[in-house]
């Protein structure tokens, strides 16, 4: 068995298949909780556990896919670039909002990590969790955090923001669609943006703008994590 699964093609096949299944499940159910990434990860873990396949065997193929992570992040420049006109039009509210959001997120997480007495590795894994996965994981890795914990926190945050979004808009009495969109994007990245797009066009556009801007601001703020911790 171990000889059969230690070739890289096994991991690549399993990942593609699980991702395909994850996308199908999300489309079929239409539920936010059935996030395609979450479904694929769970599916792979179940397969590996049931057949007693060690993570290392899977990662022989997984590492090949992992190589594309960096270049995939590079491509986010294209999505930011295509929204540049909107950024120019609203630059002040976007910058003020995203900076406030990033600082609030990092600050509140830091305080709560202290209260719960979490260690340094876990804390730096959680600090960037409000921004989009590629940037959050890059920040986590650079600070010596545990990448899979960051990914899990990013997904939980996204799903939370998506589900709570409409209630938060009411709770904080947000009337301005620009404010609601930027709030959703900076609190819960792409998964929150899916909800913003449902609420309205302006909300959706502003939310997706916030993904990139908050990501870059958080990466810059991470330079000072050493001072904070």
């Amino acid at each position, binding site marked *: 068995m171990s000889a059969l699964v230690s070739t890289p093609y096994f991991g690549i096949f399993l*990942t*593609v298949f699980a*991702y395909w299944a994850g996308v199908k499940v999300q489309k079929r159910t239409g539920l936010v909780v059935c996030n*395609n*990434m979450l479904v*694929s*990860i769970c599916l792979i*873990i179940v397969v590996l556990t049931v057949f007693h396949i060690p*993570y290392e065997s*899977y*990662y022989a193929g*997984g590492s090949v*896919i*992992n190589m*594309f*992570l*960096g*270049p995939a*992040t*590079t*491509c986010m*420049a*294209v999505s930011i*670039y*295509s929204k540049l006109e909107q950024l120019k039009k609203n630059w002040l509210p976007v910058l*003020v*909002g*995203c900076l406030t*959001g990033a600082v*609030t997120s990092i600050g*509140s*997480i830091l305080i*709560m990590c202290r209260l*719960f007495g*979490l260690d340094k590795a876990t804390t730096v894994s*959680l600090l960037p*969790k*409000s921004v989009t*996965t590629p940037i959050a994981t*890059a920040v986590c890795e650079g600070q010596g955090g545990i*990448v*899979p*914990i960051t*990914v*899990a*926190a990013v997904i*939980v*945050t996204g799903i*939370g*923001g998506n589900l709570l979004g409409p209630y*938060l*808009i009411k709770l*904080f009495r*947000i009337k301005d669609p620009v*404010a*609601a969109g930027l*709030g*959703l994007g*900076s*609190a819960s990245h792409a998964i929150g943006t899916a909800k913003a797009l449902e609420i309205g066009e302006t909300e959706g556009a502003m939310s997706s703008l916030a993904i990139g801007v908050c990501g870059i601001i958080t990466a810059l703020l991470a330079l000072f994590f050493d001072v904070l911790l």
Partner: protein
Amino acid sequence: MKILVQIGMVFGLYWLSQCIEQILPFPFPASVISLLLLLVLLVLRVIKLEQVREKADFMLGNLAFFFIPVSVSIMNYIDVIRENAVAFLVICVVSTVLTFGATAWAVQLTCRFLNKRKEGK
């Protein structure tokens, strides 16, 4: 061939960013350097959007896929998760609520300020 050149460009850019990461005196992730680099090149029109569009659309459309292998390693950290499950959940939910509120209020205040200044003129 077109796609191959695009792949080459993005990978080349990423390699360049890794080199920059090595030179920088402070730790800054290569992936974010490459993002900023491509953004600057697009803004300066050194690279045109058409020259990277297909590759970028493919990568961005399937972004979640590239994260799966590293995320599966969470199975090696089940103990850390189980021990801190309550803390993780509270931190995720509370910070999401606070971040949303702070951002949205900051934006509303800024917009109000801008409108007043416009009316004042």
